C-alpha cells in the first residue's frame, strides 16, 4: 500500500484539503466547532459526494463510490452520535458489522439452510470476539437504549471491527466518555493500530489527541491550516490563533 492521499475542494465546509495518511499510523484531525471535520469524514466514507477533489485509497481512486461499496473496500467509520441500530441488541449491532463478511441471502436465511446456519454461528462468534476486544462482552444481550453514551461509542467501534477495517475513521470517540473510559479507549486504539489498522480520529478532547496521535491535521473553516507532529502543531501560530483562548 502506498499510503493514502485525499484532495478536496469546492464545498465550503471542506475547502481544498490535501493530505496523506500513512499505513498503520494514528492520525488525527482537530479544529474548532464547524471547521468541517465531520463533513470531511462524511465525504471520505461516501455519505456526501465532493464537489471537487479526489480521494485515493491504496492507490485507487474512490471518489464518488457509494457508501456501502467504500465500506467493502475497508474504509470504515464510526459516528459522532453513535447511529446504532436501536431495534437490535448490542451483539446484533456488532453482527450487522459482519454483514460484508457473510453471503447468505434471502432464500438461504428464510429456509434456514445449513449453510446459513453455520455462517450465522461463525458471525456470532466473530461478533462476540469484537465485543470482547472493546470490553463489552457482558452487555451482549442488552438493548442499546440501556447503555451509557461512552459504551455506545464502544459498540460503534466493535461494529466497525466486525467489518475488518483497513482504515478506521473515528468521529469523536472520546466525546461524552468519562476519564477511565477515555483511558480504556486509548489502549484499545493502540491495540488496533498494532493489529495493522490505520486509525484516523476526529476529536475535540485535546489531551487525548495529543497523547495518541503521530500526526495531527488542523482544520479551520474548512481549510487545512497546519499539519505535523503534536509538538509542531502545539506551537504553530495559526493554530493558536484559530483556537484563540483555548489551551492546546
Amino acid at each position, binding site marked *: 500500500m502506498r499510503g493514502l492521499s485525499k484532495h478536496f475542494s469546492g464545498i465550503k465546509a471542506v475547502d481544498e484539503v490535501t493530505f496523506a495518511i500513512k499505513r498503520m499510523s494514528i492520525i488525527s484531525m482537530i479544529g474548532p466547532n464547524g471547521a468541517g471535520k465531520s463533513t470531511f469524514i462524511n465525504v471520505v466514507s461516501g*455519505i456526501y459526494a465532493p464537489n471537487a477533489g479526489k480521494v485515493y485509497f491504496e492507490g485507487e481512486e474512490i471518489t464518488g463510490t457509494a457508501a456501502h461499496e467504500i465500506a*467493502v473496500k475497508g474504509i470504515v467509520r464510526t459516528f459522532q452520535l453513535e*447511529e446504532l*441500530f436501536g*431495534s437490535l441488541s448490542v451483539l*446484533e449491532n456488532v453482527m450487522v458489522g459482519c454483514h*460484508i463478511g457473510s453471503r447468505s441471502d434471502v432464500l438461504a*436465511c428464510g429456509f434456514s439452510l445449513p449453510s*446459513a446456519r453455520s455462517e*450465522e454461528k461463525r458471525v456470532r462468534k466473530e461478533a462476540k470476539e469484537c465485543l470482547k476486544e472493546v470490553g463489552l462482552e457482558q452487555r451482549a444481550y442488552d438493548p442499546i437504549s440501556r447503555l451509557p453514551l461512552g459504551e455506545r461509542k464502544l459498540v460503534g467501534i466493535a461494529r466497525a471491527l466486525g467489518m475488518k477495517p483497513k482504515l478506521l475513521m473515528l468521529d469523536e470517540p472520546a466525546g461524552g466518555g468519562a476519564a477511565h473510559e477515555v483511558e480504556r479507549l486509548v489502549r484499545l486504539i493502540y491495540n488496533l493500530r498494532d493489529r495493522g489498522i490505520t486509525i484516523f480520529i476526529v476529536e475535540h478532547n485535546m489531551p487525548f489527541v495529543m497523547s495518541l496521535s503521530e500526526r495531527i491535521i488542523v482544520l479551520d473553516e474548512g481549510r487545512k491550516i497546519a499539519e505535523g507532529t503534536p509538538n509542531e502543531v502545539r506551537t504553530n501560530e495559526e493554530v493558536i490563533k484559530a483556537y484563540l483562548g483555548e489551551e492546546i
Partner: protein
Amino acid sequence: MKPVLRVNLIWSIFVALILLIPLVAGSYVISVMCFIAVFGGLAVGMGLLLEQAGLFSLAHPSWFGIGAYMSGILAVRDIAAPWLGGIIGSIFVGLISYIVGAPLLRLRGYYLACATFGLLLIVEISLGQLGSLTGGHEGLMGIPPLSLGGFVFETDVHYYYLSWALCLATLLFLHNLMGSRVGRAIKAFSDSEVAAKSVGINVPRYKLKVFILTAMMASLAGSVYTFYLRFTEPGIFGFPLLVELVTMIIIGGGKRIYGPLLGAFVVMWMRELIHMYVGGLLPRVTGEVDAIFFGVLIIVILIFMPRGLAGWVDRLFDGRRIVFGEESQG
C-alpha cells in the same frame, strides 16, 4: 422455564390447535378460520414491510389481487393447472413488483405511501376495465378447484389445511429471515439508513428484496383465496382490503412477525360477532356499526397499546428477555 422453551411450547400448542379445529368445529368456523389464515398471512407480510422494514407500501392488496387473477385466468382458460398458475402468478408479481419497486422505493415515508396507493387504484381499475381478460366488474367466473397430483381440494376442510399451511410457512420463513443476516440488515436500514450504508449494506437492494419477497408471498395467498372462492372480482382488491389489513396490523402490532396474524384473529372474529348480534338488531346499518367499532378500537389500541396486542403480550411474558435474550442466540 427458559424463554426460548416457553416460546416453542406456545407455538406447538398453537399449531396443534390449528390442526385439531376442523375435527370439532362446524363449517362456519372452518370457513372463517380459512379467511383468517389467508388475510392474516397477507397482513403478516405487509406488517413486516411497514413496521420492520419501514417501507410504507400500500400496494399489498394489488399483489394479492394480481396473484389471484393471474392463477384464476390461467386456470379458467386451461393454460396452466391451478397449482402451476399459483407459482406463475407469484413469479409474475415478483417481476411487476421489481419493475414498480426499483423506481418507487427511492421515495421515503408518506411519498412511498402515496405512490403505492396510486398503484392500488390503478390495479383495481385495470382489473375492472380489462373485461375480455378478467371478466370485468362482473368478476371472473368458472374457476376450477385446486388439484395437486390427482388430489382435488374441494371442501372447506381441504382449503383450511392448505391456507393454514401457507400461512404458517410464511410465518416460519419470515421468522427465520428476520433472525438472520438479511433480517438484521432490514432492521438496520429502517433504524438508520446512513449507518446501514456505512456498514456496507446495499440499502436500495435490500429494500427491493424485501418488497419483492412480500409481494410474491401476497400473490400466493391470493391464489389460494381465489381457488377457495372459485370466483374473484376487482372490488375485493381495493381500498376496503387495504383498510382491513392496516387495521389488523395496528391491532396486532407489526413489530412482531406474528402480530398481524393475531390482529387478523381479533378483527375477523369481532366482525363475525358484530354481524351476528348487531345484524339482528340494526340490519340496515351493520356496515356502519362495523366501521365505527373498528375506528374506535384502533384509537383505543393506539392510545393504550401503541405496539399492538403483540407488544402487550411481550410485556406479559417479560418481552425484554425474549427479544434480546437467549432466543436470538438460536
